[in-house]
């Protein structure tokens, strides 16, 4: 009812010359963002370097092309005058992020190891920190073929089984492998290779990093 009245009043008033504050035409164009720069070339050496730093592969020429486009797009920043502007590193620069003492407040070896694909007693298991015979890792060693189309995302490189059709189930349906391990102290034991080409390492990392 109120909205209908408002429409009527609006119609009448606009007829009398109230001008809207909303601009009726675009106030800028993509051209105003243009910045003359050459498209950067990504050399094969750079591709290899980035793959090594990222430990992911570009996989296809399309991936490299996408990076080139991303870099070209980012060059638009150069047209902004930032002389004398301090970089904004954190939104909380005017406050303070409290720290606490570095003591263990909650630790359950069982819970921490529960999601690891491979673990042994109370350790995570990692491959040895060595490089292969060539002296470096490169993406061509990945046993997956490049796919040529944009559908590369639809053809998984590893055949993950298709997700089960979403059916209703309770959280009790989840069963995950709980390793029976003692809840011990958190002091990492000395490093010792187990002689089978694997190294057991004591690492505790959570997928959450804050600040």
């Amino acid at each position, binding site marked *: 009812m109120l909205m209908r009245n408002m429409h009527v009043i609006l119609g009448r008033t606009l007829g009398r010359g109230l001008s809207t504050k909303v601009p009726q035409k675009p106030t800028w164009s993509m051209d105003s963002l243009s910045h003359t720069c050459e498209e950067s070339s990504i050399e094969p050496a750079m591709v290899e370097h980035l793959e090594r730093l990222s430990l992911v592969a570009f*996989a296809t020429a399309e991936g490299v092309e996408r990076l080139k486009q*991303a870099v070209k797009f980012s060059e638009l920043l150069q047209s902004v005058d930032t002389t004398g502007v301090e970089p*904004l590193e954190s939104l909380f620069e005017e406050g303070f992020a409290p720290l606490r003492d570095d003591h263990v407040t909650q630790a359950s070896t069982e819970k921490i190891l529960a999601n690891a694909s491979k673990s042994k007693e109370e350790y995570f298991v990692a491959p040895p920190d*060595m490089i292969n015979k060539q002296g470096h890792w490169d993406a061509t060693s990945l046993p*997956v073929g490049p796919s040529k189309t944009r559908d590369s995302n639809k053809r998984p490189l590893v055949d993950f089984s298709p997700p089960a059709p979403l059916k209703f189930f309770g959280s009790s349906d989840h069963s995950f492998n709980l390793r029976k391990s003692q809840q011990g102290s958190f002091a990492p034991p000395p490093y010792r290779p187990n002689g089978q080409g694997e190294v057991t390492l004591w690492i505790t990392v959570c997928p959450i990093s804050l600040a």
Partner: protein
Amino acid sequence: MTNSGERQILRKMAARRVVLDGISPHTKIGFTINQAAAALREGTLTPVELCERCLAQAQRWELLNAFVTVTADSALQQARAAERRFKLGRPLSKLDGIPFATKDNYCTAGIRTTCASNMLRGFVPPYTATVVQRLLDRGAVLVGKTNMDEFAMGSGSTDGVFGPVKNPWSYSLQRRLASRGNVVEKLANDAPESRPMEDLGDWCISGGSSGGSAAATAVGACLFALGSDTGGSTRNPAAHCGLVGLKPTAGLLPRHGLIPLVNSMDVPGIFVSSAPDAAILLGAMAGHDDKDSTAVQDPPPSFELLEEPNVHDLIVGIPQEYHAPGLQPDVLKAWTRTADLLEMAGARVMSVSLPHTLYSIVCYHVLCAVEVASNMACYDGIEYGHRSNVGSFTEEQYAATRHEAFNHVVRGRILAGNYFLLRKNRARFYKKAQQVRRLILEDFRRVFDTGVDLMLTPTTLSDAPTSKEFSAEDYCLRSAQHDVFTTPANMAGEARWWHDEVK
């Protein structure tokens, strides 16, 4: 009765059915939190009935692919516990017994949390995110985890491994009528979703990356949902699905348990069907958290909304730069109409300028890629997540693991981020983006310092595109276009509040 008379009646019946099916923001069967809380208190509705109704909606609208996991058993358990509390006359809060869903990047103890990625497909967290725990402590009932773009990277919810999320409005009467010849035949059908849109051509995207939360709330599979917002991932799908989407001020809601995308921009987001509901939720979740040192230290203010809002003393700013290239006429019309209505109601509406809006998407693009490159470094397959069988050495195995389990979007951002972080590039890209970010923040501060209380802008350039239109564009370009209105707020950290009335 004439043929046209018959058609008229059938059309009205179908329209009513559309409303009852819960895909209208003014739905009769889907409640707002306030309505449901009142009904639960009076006893006209029980928590178990409400929970069953929501679960039934979730099942009915399964074709939307809004959920990754529906936790029916535990939801009913929680609902029964809520019912016992109501019988004793001791509800925990207004949220007691209210069903909700969370995006699948919130850790929930004992319930798989996948981020719609193969990397975390089997990951079951041992703890629950703070904001989710706060809702559960107030009695809210978790019905499930919703679908999203992989690791929250995207603005369409089309890039997750569980498939895309379809916009429930794809199945609206209007769209179905437009694509079918025989009106009477269609209206005689008993269920709107019985005719899938695939054979008609296309469905609309739900927006992203929290599309599943938006779709689930829109059809009444839950009364509210949590999403996350890094560059618009709550506001964008809220706009496309006809909901209220709130991106709170950075730091107000703690992020412990929210698997991070960009630490300096991520915030938990809220999907509801009315603004007062958003206020209730903000109040329930905001506040200090020992486990998140970036969360606000001081107790937050009260978030009560007035019963009768008065806009007389309000100063509304219209940033001129928000008429960006590509803004569709419908959106412009809604924006203009809303601004003019506010002015007619007594608010002071004025033009303002945020000159660096143009650069927000580029700035976001660089900062996001850089932080993603860092955050995604924790996925090596050792402590959790997918682990490849390939590779006998560290680098080989880590690389194979990451390559197998990340989609091209995630991989592309990691590579771009590392490019921007190279020593020779860091000043040119990363530091520059941080400087531009400060300029964007200062734009906002300057406007608010002049006394402006709020700014009114569009959320997206257009209404929800079809999936064909969306995938036709290049990925980089499309998220750049679609995020132009939403990214500035993430960079400035300010709260933004959207309610799309056009739908």
